[in-house]
C-alpha cells in the first residue's frame, strides 16, 4: 500500500514538472519549419493518387519552383491530362489546356476548384508557403505522433483575407517538419487535414515524402495521397520556364 502511494506521488511530481517545463515560442518553431521547407530552386516529380467514392486515379507531374513566387507544373499522365500546364507567379495563376490551345487565368471562385479532382484546391497551391509571413503561432502542448515527439502549434492568420484562418500543426521536434495539419475556417469549421506518413532527408533538410490530403467538406472524396518521387534542390532552371509563353512550349 505504502509502495503504491510512493508511486502515485512520484507520478504526480513528474507530471507537474513536465507541465511546468516552458514550451518553446510558437513563432520560433514556425520560422524553423519554414526554413526547413523552403529552398531557392526546386525541381520535383510527384505522383498524386486521388481516391473518390467510386474511382482511383493516378496523376504524375513535374514541377519547377523558383523562390516563393514562381512555380510551373506540367502534367505527365494520365493521357487525358498529359500536356496540361500550370504557371503560378505571385498571386496569379494560369492553366494551359493543349486540346483547346487556350491559356486561362484561374481567378475568383475558380481558385476554390479542385486541382485534377484531388483534395487540393488552386487556392492551396497559390498560398504563400512561408507560413510565418501570414500567421502568428503559439505552442499549445507536446504530443507524440507516429512515434515522433511533436509540438502542437496553433496558427492564427494575421489578416482576415485568407483561405484558412486557423491552423493546427504537429511539428516534429527534431526534424522541424509538420507531420499533421488541420486547417480551419474563421468560424472554427475544420476544412482540411493533411498527414505526412513518410519523410526523407535531402541536403540536410527534411521533406515530406508521402502526404495524405483530405478535404473534410468533400463527401465524395476519400483523400488524395501525394508522393514526391524525386526532388532536386537548388537546381538550375532557365528563366523562360517561368513565363506564360512556356505554357505553350512542349
Amino acid at each position: 500500500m505504502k509502495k503504491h502511494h510512493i508511486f502515485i506521488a512520484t507520478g504526480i511530481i513528474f507530471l507537474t514538472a513536465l507541465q511546468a517545463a516552458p514550451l518553446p515560442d510558437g513563432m520560433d518553431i514556425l520560422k524553423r519549419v519554414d526554413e526547413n521547407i523552403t529552398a531557392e530552386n526546386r525541381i520535383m516529380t510527384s505522383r498524386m493518387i486521388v481516391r473518390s467514392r467510386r474511382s482511383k486515379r493516378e496523376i504524375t507531374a513535374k514541377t519547377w519552383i523558383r523562390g516563393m513566387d514562381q512555380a510551373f507544373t506540367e502534367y505527365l499522365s494520365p493521357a487525358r491530362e498529359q500536356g496540361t500546364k500550370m504557371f503560378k507567379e505571385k498571386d496569379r495563376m494560369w492553366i494551359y489546356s493543349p486540346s483547346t490551345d487556350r491559356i486561362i487565368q484561374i481567378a475568383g471562385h475558380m481558385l476554390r476548384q479542385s486541382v485534377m479532382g484531388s483534395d487540393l484546391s488552386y487556392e492551396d497551391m497559390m498560398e504563400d508557403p512561408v507560413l510565418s509571413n501570414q500567421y502568428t503561432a503559439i505552442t499549445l502542448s507536446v504530443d507524440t505522433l507516429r512515434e515522433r515527439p511533436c509540438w502542437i502549434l496553433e496558427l492564427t492568420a494575421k489578416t482576415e483575407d485568407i483561405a484558412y484562418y486557423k491552423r493546427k500543426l504537429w511539428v516534429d521536434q527534431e526534424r522541424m517538419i509538420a507531420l499533421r495539419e488541420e486547417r480551419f475556417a474563421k468560424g472554427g469549421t475544420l476544412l482540411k487535414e493533411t498527414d505526412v506518413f513518410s519523410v526523407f532527408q535531402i541536403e540536410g533538410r527534411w521533406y515530406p515524402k508521402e502526404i495524405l490530403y483530405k478535404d473534410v467538406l468533400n463527401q465524395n472524396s476519400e483523400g488524395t495521397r501525394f508522393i514526391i518521387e524525386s526532388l532536386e534542390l537548388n537546381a538550375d532552371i532557365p528563366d523562360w520556364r517561368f513565363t506564360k509563353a512556356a505554357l505553350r512550349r512542349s
Partner: protein
Amino acid sequence: MIRFLIKGLLRDRSRSLFPLITVTIGVALVTLGDSWVNGALVDIVDNNARLETGHVKVVTRAYKEQMSSAPNDLALLDTRTLIDDLEKEFTDMEWTPRIRFGGLLDVAGENDVTVRQVRGAGLAVDLSEGSKEIERLDLNKILVQGHLPQAPDEILLSPGLMENLQVDVGDEVTLISSSMYGSIVIHNFTVSGKIHFGIVALDRNMMIAPLEGIRYALNMEDAAGEVLGYFKDPDQYDKNLTASIKERFNRMYYNPEDEFSPYMLTLRDQNFLNDILLLYENVMGIFIFIFVLFMFIVLWNAGLMNGIRRYGEMGLRLAIGESANHIYITSIAESVLIGLCGSFIGILIGLGFAWYLQKYGVDITSMMDSNSLYMSNVIRARISDSTFYIGFIPGVLATALGAIVSGRGIYKRKTAQLFKELEV
C-alpha cells in the same frame, strides 16, 4: 310543374333576373379560373417534364442526395445497358440520357486573353439521328438564329448568354467546367445557334450542347447524370401510373447497400413539384368554395328581398290551401332552375374568355424576373373536360342554398292571420 315554374320566372323577371346575373357572373369566373389554373398546371408539368424531370427519372442514390448541384462525379455509368434494359422492361416509355452541367463560358480576345467570362448552366442532350430530344425540347421552334448543333463541339446559347458574352453565331467560346473526376475541364465550342425558351430562368444563362460533345469534354464516356423516361403518349402521364412504375423499377434495380445503384424518381418527387401541384390542384377547390360562399350570401339576400316582394303571393297560396312544404320546395326548384340557366350562360361566357386566353395567353414576363420555376412567360388557359361542367357546382349549389335558407320564412306565416294580412 317545371314548365309552370319556367313560365313564372320568364313572366316575372324581377323574380329571376338578379339571381340569374349573379349566378352567371360567378359561374363565368369559376369556369375561367378552372381553365386558367389548368393551363398553369399543365404548363408547369409540361415544362418541368420536358426540361428537367421527365415523367420519371433514373439517377444513382448518391446523385439523388445532391441532385440540386448536379454532381456528375456520382453519375450513372454504363448507361447504354441500363437504357436497353429499361426499354425492354417499360415498353410504353422512351428513355434518354442527359447531363446537367455548369461552368464558365470564356471568350478570348487578342493574344488569347480572356475578355469576357459568364457563368452558365448547361444541358447535354442526345441530338443524334433518331433521338426525340429535338422534338421534345421543341428545339426547332425555340431556335431563333443559326442552326442546331451538327457536330459534337457545337453549342446553343440563350439570348442572355449571347448578350453577356457579346458573341454571335459562328463564334468560339471556351467552356471551363469540371470533369466527372473533378479535374478542371477546358473545352472549345462553336456557337451554332441562339435559343429562346420563353422562360426567364432559362433565357438568362442556359446552354444546350450535344451529349456526345459534353461526354467527351467532361470525361463521361457512356455515363450520364440522369436517364429520363417519357410516356410515348404524353397524355398517358398520370401520377398513380408513374408511382407504380417507380415502385416496380426500384424493386428490381435499387440496392440500398450500393449508393451507386440506379434509383427512380417520379416527376412529383423533384423540384418540390408535389407541393406546387397539390397547391394548384387545391386552388380550384378553394376557388369554388369562395364563389359558393359569396354567391350564397348574395342569393340568400336576394331570396329574402324576393320573399318580401312576394309576401302577398305566398300568403295567398297558403290561404287557398297550398301547403308550406310545397311552396318551399317550388321556391327551391325555381332557384335550381335559375342556377341551371345562370350556370349554362356563365359557362358559355367563361368558355369564351377561356378560349381567348387559351389562344392568346397573358404575358407575365415582367413578373418573372426573379422566378426560378420552369414556367412560360406567356401563361395560357387550357380548356379541359372539367371546364364544361365545373361551373354547375357553385351555380346550382349557391342558388339552392340561398333558397333553402331564405325560404324558411314561409313556415313562420300564420294561416289564421293570412286574410287579415291580405286585407281580404
